[in-house]
C-alpha cells in the first residue's frame, strides 16, 4: 500500500509540473522529424534497407525513453528540495518501500509518456514501428524499467543531485551514442564491439527488426540485458535504503 501511495504521489508531482511532461513529449517528436527529413537523402543514396524516418524514429525514441532516468531522479530530488523527504522519513514507512514507491511512480510515468510519444510519432510523423505490438512492447518495457531504475538508484546511491546528474549526463549520452542514436554504428571494428555493452544497442536492433520480422534474434538479449541491469540497480538502491536510518 505504501509503495502505491508514494507512486501515485510521484505521478501527481509530475503532473503538477507540466513543463517537464511537455518537454519529454515534444523534444523526441521534433528531433525525429528533423533527423528523418535531414538524412532521407543519405539513406536513399546508401541503399539502406529502411527509411531515415524509421531509423531515427526508433533510435531517437529510445533515446527519449532513456532520458526518463532524469525524470526518475528528478522525482527523488524534488522530494529533497521540498524537504518532503524528511516527512517521508518521519512517517511509519520503511525506507525500502519509499524507494520502490518512487521507482514504481517514475516507471509508470515513463511508460505512459513513452506510449504517447510512440503513438504520436506513428500517427503524426508516419514512423513505421511494424505491426507486432508484443515484439515492440517487450523491449520497451524492459528499457523503461532500466531507465527508471537507473535514475532512482543514481539518486539514492549518490544522494547528491549534482553527483547523480553528472553521472547520468555522462553515461546516458554514451549509451545513446553506442546504441546508434546519433548515427548508424558500423558492423565491424572497435565501435561495433563496444556497442554490445550498450543496452540501447540491443533494444534498437530489436525494434528496428520489428517491421520486417516481428520478434528477432535481438529481442530476448535486449529484454534480458535491460531487466537484469534494472534489477541489479534496484537491489543496490534497496540495500542502501535499508541501511539508512
Amino acid at each position: 500500500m505504501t509503495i502505491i501511495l508514494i507512486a501515485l504521489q510521484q505521478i501527481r508531482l509530475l503532473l503538477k509540473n507540466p513543463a517537464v511532461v511537455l518537454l519529454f513529449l515534444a523534444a523526441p517528436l521534433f528531433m525525429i522529424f528533423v533527423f528523418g527529413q535531414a538524412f532521407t537523402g543519405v539513406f536513399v543514396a546508401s541503399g539502406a534497407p529502411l527509411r531515415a524516418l524509421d531509423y531515427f524514429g526508433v533510435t531517437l525514441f529510445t533515446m527519449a525513453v532513456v532520458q526518463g532516468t532524469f525524470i526518475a531522479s528528478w522525482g527523488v530530488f524534488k522530494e529533497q528540495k521540498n524537504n518532503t523527504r524528511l516527512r517521508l522519513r518521519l512517517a511509519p514507512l520503511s525506507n525500502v518501500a519509499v524507494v520502490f514507491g518512487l521507482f514504481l511512480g517514475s516507471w509508470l510515468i515513463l511508460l505512459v509518456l513513452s506510449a504517447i510519444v510512440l503513438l504520436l510519432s506513428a500517427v503524426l510523423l508516419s514512423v513505421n514501428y511494424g505491426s507486432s505490438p508484443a515484439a515492440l512492447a517487450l523491449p520497451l518495457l524492459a528499457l523503461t524499467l532500466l531507465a527508471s531504475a537507473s535514475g532512482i538508484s543514481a539518486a539514492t546511491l549518490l544522494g547528491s543531485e549534482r553527483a547523480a546528474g553528472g553521472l547520468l549526463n555522462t553515461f546516458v549520452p554514451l549509451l545513446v551514442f553506442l546504441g546508434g542514436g546519433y548515427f548508424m554504428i558500423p558492423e565491424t571494428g572497435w565501435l561495433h564491439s563496444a556497442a554490445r555493452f550498450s543496452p540501447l544497442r540491443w533494444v534498437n536492433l530489436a525494434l528496428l527488426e520489428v517491421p520486417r520480422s516481428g520478434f528477432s534474434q535481438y529481442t530476448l538479449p535486449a529484454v534480458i540485458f535491460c531487466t537484469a541491469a534494472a534489477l541489479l540497480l534496484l537491489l543496490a538502491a534497496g540495500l542502501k535504503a535499508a541501511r539508512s536510518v
Partner: protein
Amino acid sequence: MIQIRNASKNFGATLAVDNISLDIRKGSLFGLLGPNGAGKSTLINLVCGLLPADSGSISFPDFGPNNQRAIKKSLGLVPQELAFYPNYTAMENVRFFASLYGLRGQALRRAADAALEFAGLTDSAKKPAKAFSGGMKRRLNIACGIVHDPQLIILDEPTVGIDPQSRNHILRSVEQLCRQGRTVIYTTHYMEEAETVCTDIAIMDKGKIIARGDKDELKLLIKDSTQVCFYFKRPEEVDLAAFRKINGVRHVQLDEQVLQVVSEVGISNLNELTAEINRQALLLSDIRSSSPSLETVFLTLTGRSLRD
C-alpha cells in the same frame, strides 16, 4: 515520555550534542532555548530518529523497546524549514501527509479539515501553497506536522521570519496543543517566546544543557545579579569596555539603543555607571531597573547574548 541519556553527536570535529541527559514529562510544554548553532536541531533530529546518536540513548518508555512504528505514529515534527509541496493546495498537502499515517476515507477528511482549521487555513484550503504569505506557509508547515494527531509534537523554531500576527497565532496554537494533553517540545532562540509559552525550559549552548527548570527556577540561578538598562539616543558612541571595568559589573551588552548592565547584588555601582555615561558624554533618554529575564540568565551563564 522521553528519556535522553548521555546522548552525543559529532559532525567531524564539531561536537553538536555533548553528553546530554534529559527527561521530558508527558503533557509538558518543553522549551529548548539557545542561540543558533547551539545544537537544538541536532538534538531534535536525534529524538526523531533522523540521526543516530554516536553514544548514549534516547528512549520512549511509554512505548516499550523496539516499537519504532508506534513511536513514529505518535510523533509529529514541524521542521525549521518548510516541508510541503508548493504546487499543491493546502488541502492536498495535509491529506497526503495524513495518508502516510494510514488515515483513509472519512477519518482522513476529518483530520485534514481539523489540521487546517487549527492552523487557521480553512479559507485558503484550496489555494496552492506557493501563493501563501510567509506566515501562512509556516502555519501550513504546522498543519502538515500535526494532521495525524500525534501525542508528541516537536516544533523547531516555528516562528522564524514571520509577521507578529502569525507569530501570535502559532504561540496560541502551541498552548492549545498542550492544553489538549499533547507533549510539546518547542525550540527557539527567542527568549520571550520560551518565557511566554513553556512550562519547562532547558537552555542549550555549544551542545550542552547549561540550565534547566521553569522560568522562575532559571531566574533564581542569577538571584545574586541585578540588571539596569540604559537607553541612549546615540548608542554608537558607547564604549563598552569602560563599563566592564566598573566595580561589580558582571556583563555588559548593547542591544540596539539599550545598554544592559548585569551587576552583583549588594554592590552599589549606579553612581559609577552614571559617572561613566557623563564621562563619555552619552545622551541618555531613559534608565530602567528591570527584573532578570531568560536573556539575562543566558547572558550571565555564557557571557553572550542569545542572538550572538
